[in-house]
């Protein structure tokens, strides 16, 4: 099913959003996890991303950007809010029972994800250094080197021009290199 077809289906039946969730939750969660390095926060941010996507699905017009890029845009905004400590948690908006079962299943995932994280010491060191940089550099470096996105996709996700992206990557890399040497 193509993005426009899927979109039409969701607009007619919001239940069809589960297809988007199944297809994109894992990559979005992975992206957020590789930015924050924290399992619980990542689950919360990824959840909020899909909540916002469902809430604003009528605003998405599929002109120039794919559904995937759109989800990355929302996730990136949620990450910005997270780093600026200006976001609310999805867990605040669900009933106690749902929040409880969500925490329980997240506990099961946490061990496995944390083990995976500990196996990648070099990545952890780079992430720690990256987190000391301004958010604009974190975004581009994470999308380029952690998510392996090309210039076109990064520009679409962040809504910036290619020239701006190149200069951000160049300056960001230099700063990250300096920070990595200090760590």
């Amino acid at each position, binding site marked *: 099913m193509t993005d426009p077809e899927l979109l039409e289906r969701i607009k007619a039946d919001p239940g069809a959003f589960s297809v988007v969730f199944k297809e994109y939750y894992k990559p979005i969660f992975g992206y957020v996890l590789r930015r924050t390095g924290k399992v619980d926060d990542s689950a919360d941010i990824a959840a909020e991303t899909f*909540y916002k996507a469902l809430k*604003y699905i009528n605003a998405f017009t599929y002109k120039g950007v794919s559904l995937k890029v*759109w989800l990355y845009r929302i996730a990136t905004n949620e990450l910005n809010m997270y780093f600026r400590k200006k976001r609310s948690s999805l867990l605040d*908006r669900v009933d106690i029972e749902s929040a409880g079962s969500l925490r329980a299943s997240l506990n099961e995932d946490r061990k496995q994800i944390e083990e995976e994280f500990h196996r990648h010491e070099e*990545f952890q060191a780079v992430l720690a250094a990256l987190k000391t940089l301004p958010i604009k550099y974190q975004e581009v470096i994470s999308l380029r*080197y952690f998510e392996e996105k090309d210039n076109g996709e990064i520009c679409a996700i962040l*809504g910036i021009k290619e020239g701006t992206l190149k200069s951000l990557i160049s300056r960001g890399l230099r700063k990250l290199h300096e920070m990595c040497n200090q760590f």
Partner: protein
Amino acid sequence: MEEMQEFEERLKHMEKPMVDELKHQDVLANAIAEARNRSLVSWWWLGVSLYVLVALFMKTLFVPHETLTRNLHEFATRDGWLSILVFLILPGLSIAMNLPAMLRIYREAGKPQASGLLRIVWLNVVIVLVSIIVIFIYL
């Protein structure tokens, strides 16, 4: 320069933690479906102004030889502070609340195109326009 290239290559080929199976995914799908948005649309603030304005408008319609301008002037002379609150402060507050809200929604909704954005912020736009009209009528 060479050092930077080496660093870039290192980043490119560095192994990254990957996410395998996620048990919380299904539970989360249900939680998202039942999550409620608790933010309130700020019609409330404008309600008082509109109520007074409609009352004055009705008076203009049903009382012979009355005009809205004269009724407004009379209201402003009789209840100076109240008229400032109702026709300037409350609509001003509505504008001040709705403009940042629209900007926030634009970011939260993944920077949609104008037509898409309008579909979700139409109520905010209406509130801002009505507020401007209320202020304009008063001034």
